[in-house]
């Protein structure tokens, strides 16, 4: 950074042999974050849902520690309403890389009577308790999440290293400033740090990176014919979670998913994109954010995400 004067008049950054492409810059930053956590924490874990963001996180972690194994285990919060293709993908990846998988099960909590099924069948808000209790019982001190600041306006305020108290709560007014790339991971016993290596990535970056690296995804991300019904303007997959109701009709449509989550509140979009390039072209042209297009729970209120994050949601 010392040579400001020497670059006067040179306004073609692509001519510099040292300019990193934006994907290389984002990749390098994310790897730095993974390695900082490996260096500073005792017992980190990667939240892994089998969705594209956590798949990219896993890929980055593999590269960060190559040729050694990833020094973290994985944690999946299983809502009990997962897409079978995603669970199959999860188990295959875990086996292929010899990873250790922890599962926090929402269904267990419901069966034990600790959590109560909501009338709308949505289990997304129910994930917080199993997640936070698992973090406490396994004594995880760093929890990687695939959250991106571009997803939502409360997330735009999120730090890369985000301190959570012993109740896993996020207090947006008491966040540590993050200066340069000097991340502060200090925490008291019982507290933990949520870590977001993809903070600076956008949805399009994630897809471009998946394409560049040739990363395999669950097939539900690509256009396929599927039995769906319409609720609140979204195409939902029929299932044991309470859809469709009597007034809702199942139809067969060509759709794909932009996000992967609980089946009860994750909508599919109409699409004929069967390849990565087609998906990228579709997203680049889309006038809807991925959450706006596919997440019912974020529409509950203006601060829905902020409120859930305060409670410990990822």
């Amino acid at each position: 950074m010392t040579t400001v004067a020497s670059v006067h008049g040179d306004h073609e950054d692509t001519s510099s042999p040292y300019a990193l492409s934006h994907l290389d810059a984002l990749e390098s930053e994310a790897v730095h974050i993974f390695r900082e956590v490996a260096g500073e924490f005792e017992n980190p874990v990667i939240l892994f849902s089998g969705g594209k963001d956590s798949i990219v996180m896993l890929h980055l972690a593999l590269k960060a520690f190559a040729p050694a194994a990833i020094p973290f285990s994985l944690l999946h919060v299983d809502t009990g309403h997962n897409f079978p293709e995603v669970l199959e993908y999860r188990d295959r990846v875990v086996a292929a890389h010899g990873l250790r998988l922890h599962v926090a099960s929402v269904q267990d909590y419901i069966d034990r009577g600790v959590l109560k099924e909501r009338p709308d069948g949505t289990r997304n808000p129910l994930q917080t308790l199993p997640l936070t209790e698992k973090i406490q019982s396994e004594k995880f001190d760093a929890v990687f999440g695939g959250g991106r600041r571009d997803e939502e306006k409360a997330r735009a305020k999120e730090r890369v290293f985000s301190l959570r108290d012993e109740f896993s709560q996020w207090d947006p007014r008491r966040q540590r400033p993050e200066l340069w790339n000097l991340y502060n991971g200090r925490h008291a016993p019982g507290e933990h740090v949520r870590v977001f290596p993809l903070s600076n990535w956008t949805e399009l970056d994630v897809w471009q990176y998946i394409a560049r690296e040739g990363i395999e995804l669950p097939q539900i991300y690509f256009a396929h014919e599927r039995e769906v019904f319409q609720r609140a303007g979204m195409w939902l997959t029929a299932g044991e979670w309470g859809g469709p109701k009597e007034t809702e009709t199942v139809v067969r449509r060509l759709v794909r998913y932009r996000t992967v989550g609980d089946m009860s509140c994750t909508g599919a979009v109409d699409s004929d994109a069967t390849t990565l390039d087609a998906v990228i072209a579709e997203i680049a042209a889309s006038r809807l954010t991925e959450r706006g297009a596919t997440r019912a729970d974020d529409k509950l209120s203006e601060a829905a995400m902020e409120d859930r994050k305060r409670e410990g949601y990822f």
Partner: protein
Amino acid sequence: MTTTTEALSATTLLRFATAGSVDDGKSTLVGRLLHDSKSVLTDQLEAVERASASRGQDGPDLALLTDGLRAEREQGITIDVAYRYFATPRRRFILADTPGHVQYTRNMVTGASTAELTVILVDARNGVVEQTRRHAAIAALLRVPHVVLAVNKMDLADYEESVFAAIAEEFTAYASELGIPEVTAIPISALAGDNVVEPSANMDWYGGPTVLEHLETVPVAHDLAHCHARLPVQYVIRPQTAEHPDYRGYAGQIAAGTFRVGDPVTVLPSGRTTTISGIDLLGKPVGVAWTTQSVTVLLADDIDVSRGDLIVPTKDAPATTQDVEATVCHVADQPLTVGHRVLLKHGTRTVKAIVKDIPSRLTLDDLSLHPHPGQLVANDIGRVKVRTAEPLPVDSYADSRRTGSFILIDPADGTTLTAGMVGESFAAPDPVKDEASDDGWDF
């Protein structure tokens, strides 16, 4: 379709920050950059329209796009740095959107610490005011490589060239005193859209770039040949598998300069020397690597290297010291006092330290010095002398933003207390002199 992917991938990344007073139109500028680059999507705009209507406002309030927290919306102010993302076919942007209030100096420092460019907004009707000088001083202090002066609300100044020219001249002179090497001044109206994304039809006397055009073309990579090469070791990679029984790699993100296979290197603080026998760029061997690539370096000799060490070229090693003198910005609510026992994180190394002296506090408004203030409180900028428990290889912040910076941490509760920049404060070849100061500090 492959060509679409390639074209989208071949862009570079620019991190920049905005600075402006409350009514200078910063939100409007940010809103327009986001909106005109088609980064505000329909559902986000609808959410803003819904929220605006429920508050009884006539039109969509674009500030709601950027004020993400409940408390911010309730109070109608921005209380914290937020990061925004947008892209054009030429480049991807990360915008550190920092609040303009005087009391949030720490937020501007936070945003500027990673920025390669700062946009400082001025109201054409008010010209250069105290807050403008404060923003320029912080940009100079943080050595943000590029400074843009956006003279906003030109529509309210009849698009007069003389108004713009006078402000640009006054600001450039002040910036030059601070050591800011180059200022790009642009006359704009964020509200009307003049010279933000589209060239203005109202100011044909202006021949320079629009704000977006400048953001798209300003160089982001510098000539690294003359930089001191620095690699802070983050983590030691030892697979100990049948396939890699002897692999021992030192992983880190190159903080500055370039490293080549065959380079003689020294490991600090131990001072042991060896040569680089290999460089792996995320699993793939390469002959050369440079800042800010994350790499794994293999060394010819089996010497003791661990997290916190710094690998440097043998011919260009920094001195190590236990007495660090720096300009700092205090970012925590609890004050920093002489005698305070702290932790100092520099690169990948965290050491115990004690605040030995606070020789002065800087008044940003006029750059005057308040000698021996006794303590620094939130948002204060001052000089600090710190004694560390172990020797540290620090560079001057003027030479390296990465290896010349550090943070102080409260060992009791982990709070990030202070952001530090080692060495002289401003980049001025002819530093601003303070006559009241007799202790030689040069701000």
